[in-house]
């Protein structure tokens, strides 16, 4: 592509390519030619004054490559890449909402995260957006009612699930078009839980942000905090003490245990097997107790901080943790028997919501959803962080690609998680658990990803040399997995929607931020 491309190898700690606005498609195309399994991780917008920077973070062979481009703020138009990578559709819609970038040729550029009555031409993540002023003006205008779709079109019946629905614990709307029992079309409307955290992060200090990003999602809170502090540590160039790395690993794995068990119980509820829900949640309580022993809190752990962890592990707590997880491991045998042999469970999940390996790669799904379709990706193996490089564990994959396989992957990972905690406790190094770091972070930027319970969690942080970050971008695993729901629901039975949906482990507070 000649002089239009400029390669900056040391940039962001990873390879980055600078291209002109029209060439973003060519760059993505050539990346796909080099590796057809490459996918998009995130699309970060960045206000650069007169221009808006766009960063396509692509993943190829487990490594993140960034393609950078710029568009002018006055006329922010750029060709779409969603026809090359279908997984990019939602990323582009989000960037349109938050930055006002128009992706030419996008199949469905409807509003995704902002509310229906949000003023036109107000893009919250632009630095010059006068949000309070514009909102006050909009308040005086009459409120628009929530958009309601027509009840039916020909033979197709419209069924709206949400925003308040017994099967959804969170408010989100899904419009399904059904023909008899068969789902023909799914249209998700997310944004009911959009709290504008990326903007809020720019207005708080780095230390305050640790507690803010934890509250993106109450379930995988430790992963958000860990990913954020690791990104900041990358910019600072500090090395965390080994003991802190082990302690972080234990907290992250406890987080995974509780999240997976929560989901497995919830799956029982969705398929009408309430006993499984009650049993699984009963056995999950000891994990919450352990989190409380180690961090002081049951749910939001607040254990991570820039430079280490906030609390050391007491020697007296180690036997308590070890006995609890040994009991939990024994109990897992019961669940294996149940998941593998119970006919009522198998009939609702096996061959339901099948996602083929090809589709999984095309839609760029992550985590247990990808591993349930036989795609062997796991950030803990691909690019080990914290103590994962030193701890032996297995990468779990299943080839069936159905709801059952996705749930089984999680059950296997619970056992792996128990083994990881056990090993980490036995090999816990001595030394400090925290080092002092400056409050003002030097100018720079970094990308980082960790394996959250739901899959790859991605952060991009840009610092301009003050105590406040200039930009924090979060790409959550659930956001990447939403397109998979559309694919597996369409063509399936309406009664199969709950089990296939729950097997993706949806979490809308993550999705919307």
């Amino acid at each position, binding site marked *: 592509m000649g002089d239009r491309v400029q390669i900056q190898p040391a940039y962001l700690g990873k390879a980055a390519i600078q291209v002109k606005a029209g060439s973003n498609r060519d760059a993505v195309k050539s990346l796909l030619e080099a590796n057809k399994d490459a996918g998009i991780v995130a699309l970060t917008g960045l206000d650069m004054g007169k221009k808006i920077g766009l960063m396509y973070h692509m993943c190829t062979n487990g490594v993140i490559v960034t393609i950078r481009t710029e568009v002018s703020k006055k006329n922010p138009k750029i060709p779409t890449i969603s026809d090359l990578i279908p997984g990019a559709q939602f990323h582009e819609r989000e960037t349109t909402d938050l930055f006002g970038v128009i992706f030419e040729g996008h199949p469905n550029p409807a509003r995704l995260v902002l509310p229906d009555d949000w003023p036109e031409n107000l893009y919250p993540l632009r630095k010059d957006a006068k949000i309070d002023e514009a*909102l006050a003006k909009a308040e005086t205008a009459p409120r628009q009612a929530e958009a309601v779709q027509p009840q039916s079109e020909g033979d197709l019946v419209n069924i709206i699930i949400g*925003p308040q629905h017994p099967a959804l614990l969170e408010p989100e709307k899904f419009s399904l078009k059904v023909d008899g029992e068969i789902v023909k079309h799914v249209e998700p409307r997310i944004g009911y839980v959009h709290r504008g955290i990326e903007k809020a992060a720019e207005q708080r200090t780095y230390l305050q942000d640790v507690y803010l990003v934890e509250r993106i999602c109450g379930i995988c809170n430790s992963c958000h905090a860990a990913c954020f502090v690791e990104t900041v540590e990358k910019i600072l160039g500090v090395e965390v003490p080994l003991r802190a790395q082990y302690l972080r690993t234990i907290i992250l794995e406890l987080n995974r245990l509780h999240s997976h068990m929560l989901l497995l119980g919830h799956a029982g509820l969705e398929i009408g097997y309430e006993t499984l829900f009650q049993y699984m949640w009963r056995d999950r309580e000891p994990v919450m107790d352990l989190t409380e022993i180690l961090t002081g809190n049951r749910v939001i752990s607040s254990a991570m901080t820039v430079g280490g962890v906030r609390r050391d592990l007491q020697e007296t707590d180690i036997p308590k943790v070890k006995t609890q997880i040994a009991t939990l491991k024994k109990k897992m045998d019961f669940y294996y028997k149940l998941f593998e042999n119970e006919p009522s469970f198998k009939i609702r999940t096996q061959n339901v919501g099948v996602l083929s390996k090809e589709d999984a790669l095309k839609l760029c799904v992550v985590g247990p959803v990808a591993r349930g379709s036989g795609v062997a990706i796991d950030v803990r193996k691909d690019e080990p962080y914290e103590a994962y490089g030193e701890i032996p564990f297995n990468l779990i994959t299943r080839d069936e690609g159905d709801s059952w396989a996705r749930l089984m992957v999680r059950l296997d990972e619970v056992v792996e998680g128990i083994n990881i905690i056990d090993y980490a406790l036995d090999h816990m190094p001595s030394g400090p658990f925290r080092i002092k770091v400056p409050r003002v972070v030097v100018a720079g930027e970094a990308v980082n990803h960790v394996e959250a319970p739901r899959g790859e969690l991605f952060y991009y942080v840009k610092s301009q040399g003050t105590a406040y970050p200039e930009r924090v971008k979060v790409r959550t695993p659930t956001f990447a997995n939403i397109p998979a729901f559309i694919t597996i629901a369409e063509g399936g039975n309406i009664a199969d929607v709950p089990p296939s949906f729950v097997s993706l482990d949806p979490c809308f507070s993550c999705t919307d931020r």
Partner: protein
Amino acid sequence: MSKLATWARLKSPWVLHFNSGACNGCDIEVIALLTPRYDVERFGIKLEPSPRHADVLLTTGSVTRQCAERLKRIYEQMPEPKFVVAIGACACSGGVFKGNYNVLDGVDKVIPVNAYIPGCPPKPEAIIDGVVKLLNSVKEAKPNGK
């Protein structure tokens, strides 16, 4: 007759849970209430999926702009007398998200609230305590200050 109704309401309050833009932290604690360790069914409390059958609305989250209209509608659909419990720091005052462009800083900006349970998230014991306190207050007081 009204005495009988109050007695029945106190012995078996049906609750509706609505997340108006929470981080899920409070929500998983609300669900944990139903499971064997906390088991609020021993107070006759039952989670009810429809607002039209519910006596108590348990709300979590800081109320996003997109959710506000829906929260109001759910409240309006509930039959009288109705009670609202705001669970968690966000539902009480906006919490960590206070001042963000898409949140309205608390449930009481949209609908009247009878009980506040602070915490981020409150422990299940705290939520039980709050709901039981609300039930005790129902014995004497009239709902929504009427």
